[in-house]
């Protein structure tokens, strides 16, 4: 999974307000609010970054231990993939927001 490229689902409407994302999931019309760290992960998913790049970015920006960032980022990205907010791909994708 670390080498997979992460992109946002292009059907997702969202806004980043200050440092928190509000995401609208089209299937249920529900709004979700991400905390600032989760928002950085979500925003970093531009189709050109791999999972490992995003983990590195989180370690750099939030000064946290790589082991912890690794575990929590993977859990979170898996969760967003499950919720169809993010998409994993073996290759970089063109779409980015």
């Amino acid at each position, binding site marked *: 999974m670390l080498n997979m490229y992460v992109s946002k689902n292009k059907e997702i409407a969202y806004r980043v*307000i200050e440092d928190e994302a509000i995401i609208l999931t*089209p299937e249920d019309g529900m709004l979700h609010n991400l905390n600032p760290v*989760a928002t950085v992960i979500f925003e970093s998913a531009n189709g050109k970054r791999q999972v490992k790049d995003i983990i590195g970015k989180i370690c750099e920006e939030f000064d946290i231990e790589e082991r912890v960032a690794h575990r929590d980022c993977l859990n*979170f990205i898996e969760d967003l993939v499950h919720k169809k907010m993010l998409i994993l791909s073996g290759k970089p994708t063109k779409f980015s927001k």
Partner: protein
Amino acid sequence: MPQASSTVFRAQSTVANLTISRKIPIYVFLELTRLCNLRCRHCYLVKEKKAELSTEEIKEVIRQLRNENALILNFSGGEVFERQDFFDISEYAKELNFGIKIFTNGTLIDDLKAARLAKLKPLRVEISIYSLDPEVHDSITGVEGSLEKSLNALCLLRSHKIPLRIKTPLMKNNFSGYRRIIELAKRLGAKYQFDPNIIPKLDGDKSVLCRRIGKKNLIQLLRDPAIRANEDSMTRGGGQTEGLSCSAGHNSCAINAYGEVQPCAILPIKLGSLRKNDFCNIWKNSPELNCLRSVRMSDLKVCSKCSLLACCARCPGLAYLETGNILGVSRRNCFVSKINSGLWFYQ
């Protein structure tokens, strides 16, 4: 630092609190036109002698809404497909990453439009159906053959897998057929919603209120398991949040076809014209809006002390249209609350 996903995602109520506290107009009701090909007897809209917004003006409004972090646009009318530029406008909104809902009577939707709507991927298309009996439906819309066209639109949209909701204002003359509408919605995989609160016209004309259903019908509706089991099946009030009487003007607003900003489609307090001012300035600085935002439940002299408050879906728009005062008491809300609370069964 990152936390377990369950805590990273915050509850829906947190979204409401966040957008209200930061005054983000997350939901915007955008009336595209007051033109309509139907003549519904209960319609609350009043045509005014003003020019409606042009395509470019609406796009500019949408750009301004995007800058203020609006996220969900409800396109409504009149009848939105009376505008030849509907797709131009809605596709532009989609480009700007809005979630879109469309309110329509469906009568102007053909297969080409349905296919184009499918590409737009709206959150939902909502179509008004008053009865499955053509005589009843068409007598309400004032146009013969309108039921057939609206039902055809539902089928076309369903074939394109577009999420649907059937909306039905319930009145004396269509109440008896509401269960058939539920059955239709279930067959189509659509949501359904009934509104027992016909509202006065925006100019204060209350003559339409004689169409409202009475106590017996309302009790039947509220006791119906198909309604009770589905929270979404009846329209509620404005949504009381953190002591506010409604979220209108806090994280939502309406823009009418003439470019005037209002707290809500049925709260016709003009906050400013987008032809004279930009949205940001109106949203942040309108004295009327700031006054509305300062209202708390405790300011409602009668309602705040009412024993039925917990089961009341009080709507400031309805109170305003009935009494001319947003702090006033809507007799209709009181009536529904009394029935809802079960008091009628003991009196």
